[in-house]
């Protein structure tokens, strides 16, 4: 594998659910060591893009490569972590923070997933990094919104993934937790990992991201955050016709 392979390379991806096309010719390359904000309205294909990268949906056309390898291979080698939207998690599920973070280690374990010393150390370290050590034994539903997100980020850290996907991590999260998560993602990127964050929160974008991607079934814009936030670009991404302004 060459040292210059991109962290994520999505090429000409088309995904349709029946008659509805979610992504059409979507092409996107992410460089290592960067945090990228993924911006688009509901139905723009953000979730579908994530699902295609994770192999949950099969594209009709196109390919996904992670760190220069076929996405399937990359997933098996634990290169990919995912932090789900809050609505997609059953918070009443009888698992502790420790249990959830330990799930990040399953790909490193044997067939029956019996944790070894190295797995426990990795979980411990991940919990320390997100400052949840004291809450390790707490059921996940008994955490605040921000703590919940941090638990799932810790799962990705314990997994040791070099590409982390986060789906709306700031929804329902207080400002302090948001700052902690942003700091953590910046640290990860500084260590050479690549982070892709879908978000509605345009105000947080300058502190969070090195670059931004505007998505509407395909990539409309990829570049600096300031550029993405220019009215003419946002107008295109959110499909608002400003009546001759554009």
């Amino acid at each position, binding site marked *: 594998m060459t040292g210059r392979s991109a962290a994520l390379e999505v090429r000409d991806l088309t995904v349709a659910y029946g008659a509805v096309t979610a992504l059409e010719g979507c092409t996107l390359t992410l460089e290592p060591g960067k945090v990228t904000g993924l911006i688009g309205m509901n139905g723009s294909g953000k979730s579908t893009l994530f*699902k295609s990268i*994770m*192999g*949950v949906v099969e594209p009709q056309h196109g390919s996904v490569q992670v760190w220069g390898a076929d996405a*399937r291979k990359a*997933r*098996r*080698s*634990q290169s*990919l*972590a*995912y932090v*789900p939207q809050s609505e*997609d*998690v*059953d918070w009443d*599920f*009888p*698992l*502790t923070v420790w*249990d*959830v973070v330990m*799930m*990040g280690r*399953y*790909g490193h374990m044997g*067939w*029956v*997933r019996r944790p070894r010393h190295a797995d426990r150390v990795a979980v411990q370290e991940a919990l320390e990094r997100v400052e949840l050590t004291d809450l390790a034994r707490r*059921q996940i539903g008994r955490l605040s919104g921000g703590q919940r997100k941090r638990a799932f980020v810790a*799962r990705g850290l314990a*997994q040791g993934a070099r590409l982390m*996907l986060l789906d709306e991590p700031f929804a329902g999260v207080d400002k302090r937790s948001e700052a902690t998560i942003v700091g953590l993602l910046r640290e990860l990127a500084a260590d050479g990992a690549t982070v892709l964050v879908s978000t509605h929160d345009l105000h947080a974008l300058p502190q969070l991201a090195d670059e931004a991607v505007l998505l509407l079934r395909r990539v409309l814009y990829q570049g600096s955050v300031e550029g993405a936030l220019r009215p003419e670009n946002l107008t295109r991404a959110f499909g608002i016709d400003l009546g001759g302004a554009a």
Partner: protein
Amino acid sequence: MSVIDIVLEPLQYDFMVRALAVTVIAAVVCALLSCWLVLVGWSLMGDAVSHAVLPGVVLAYVVGVPFALGALAFGVLAVVLIGVLRGTSRVKEDAAIGIVFTTLFALGLVLISVVPSQTDLSHILFGNILGVSSQDVWQVGLLAAVALAVLLLKSRDLTLFAFDSTHAHAMGLNPKRLGWLLLGLLAVVCVVALQVVGVILVVALLIIPGATAYLLTDSFTRMLWIAPLMSAVSSVVGIYLSYWFDASSGGLVVVVQGVVFTLVYLFAPRQGLVAKMRERSAARA
């Protein structure tokens, strides 16, 4: 009559010893499986599969192969049909489940009525725990051991599947395969429990213990202890009640489980209705 007599008297009959053995085995395996079914949200699926295995069991009897094979084939067939119906028409999932399992169950009833056999229709439908032969005990024990081993070995993967199947995808695992594993276990476990409570009531053993344990603890590991314990104890109580009151054994096993669930629903320390109401009035004060 002392309590000891009440417990010991039935045990002088071999058929009661066999009945209790099979009941405990079935109760424990069903209860373990129910922990995952309840959390995945597959109670209705459990209902469907447990009814849909009926024609498979009858055909297996006719052909002379183990009941589990027939049950497995029709359990899988039911799930495939439900999936196809939902995926290729505007019929929603609950309707698809309802159509498929009632049709297969009815097919089973028709088959029973035309197949000449010594097996009584009511035994398959309502269980025949007092007529268990020692060969049956071995069969049930073997099937239960296989199901138990698979459940315990794959327990962590199944929990991951129940909790976050998207994450399973991201880690390169195959959640679909885990889903099929769970459904296959469901079909096999139905055969284990068939003799105790019958096809119609199997679903009770597959839902009530898991749901009861879920109300009692926030730890999945503890659920895996509480559910089988609760299920085994209440099933044994049910069998004893049926002996002393000469009433339907399968019926009493399920009624006792339902009573235990109701008590837990009302009085569980944290999730119980009473505790919740107290908490609410304390918050208001």
